[in-house]
């Protein structure tokens, strides 16, 4: 092909329907190559720009119902707390069952507490006894003869002249 590409042949080239003869000519003809390249690069650049700009993720839709898919947004702020509580409730029996301590530890703990309670009661009893002892010691005469001492005291007061 000696003549340059016609308008139609250039368009065919860019449209991707060029003949073999046109292709050969473009390979050899700088002018037609530049013509083709100019249009082709402009179209290619435009297409690339559109491809880059026209990007958006697909929505999550219930396609059958034609509405947004029901998402599990139920109390999103509470979800971690609820999950933690549920986990704790589930794990609690296991924690007791698979306690890291020997089972007799629990009974020992209980026994120790019981002993402490008994000790406290004993101490209270001791204190009460000591108070009783103190009271008894502080008496001038033993308790059984206290009425007699009172009687003598009363008599000495009234019969003071007699004794003198």
């Amino acid at each position: 092909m000696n003549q340059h590409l016609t308008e139609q042949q250039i368009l065919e080239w860019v449209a991707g329907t060029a003949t073999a003869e046109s292709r050969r000519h473009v390979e050899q003809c700088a002018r037609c190559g530049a013509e083709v390249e100019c249009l082709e690069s402009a179209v290619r650049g435009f297409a690339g720009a559109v491809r880059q700009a026209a990007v958006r993720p697909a929505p999550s839709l219930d396609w059958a119902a034609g509405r947004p898919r029901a998402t599990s947004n139920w109390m999103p702020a509470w979800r971690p707390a609820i999950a933690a509580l549920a986990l704790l409730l589930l794990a609690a029996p296991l924690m007791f069952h698979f306690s890291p301590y020997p089972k007799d530890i629990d009974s020992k703990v209980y026994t120790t507490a019981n002993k402490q309670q008994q000790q406290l009661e004993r101490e209270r009893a001791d204190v009460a006894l000591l108070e009783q002892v103190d009271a008894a010691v502080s008496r001038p005469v033993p308790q059984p003869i206290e009425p007699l001492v009172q009687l003598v005291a009363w008599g000495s007061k009234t019969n003071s002249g007699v004794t003198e």
Partner: protein
Amino acid sequence: METAVTIELPTSPAVASPSPLLDDFDAVVAQYWPRVYRYACSAVRDPDEAQTIAQDCFMKAYRAREQFRGESGLATWLIQIAVNLVRDRARNRRLQFWKWAATRSVEAGEAGHWLSDQAPTPEARASTRQQIAEVGKAVEYLSGRQRTVFLLRFVDGMDLAEIASATGLKEGTVKAHLFRALGAVRRRVGAIR
């Protein structure tokens, strides 16, 4: 004022079970959404409008999935639905074509970067950006069919037979629309040289 959108879904007279390709529709959406959305976006020049069109496209495809027999490619079938949706929407309202593109001048910069190996100097990059802008303006003034064919060919990369299948036009008609569109683009781009 909007009128009811009537979609011509591609159907097949053969009575057969629906294609297993549509069994996992979420996977279909995941695979073909980018392509359908890209076509819609390039056609209507409005991301939100394009999103609506793409959603409608997949919803209609889901409802009509039993009509798909796998005779054409699934992508072609979906694009056909999208083309019909775009056409019907364009019928119902005058879209402000390229308004979106005009407000997103960054696109030209992105495209310039994309073509940076071909335009190494600032002058060449500026020239490329201007060319891309001129292509956009040229496409703005194309007829609906010319624009659809042009976008499907160059943005979506469909061949003429696929475009014919998607648009319902004969292949020769597709070719004629494509050449007219390219001619308009060439005139526009040539005017700035």
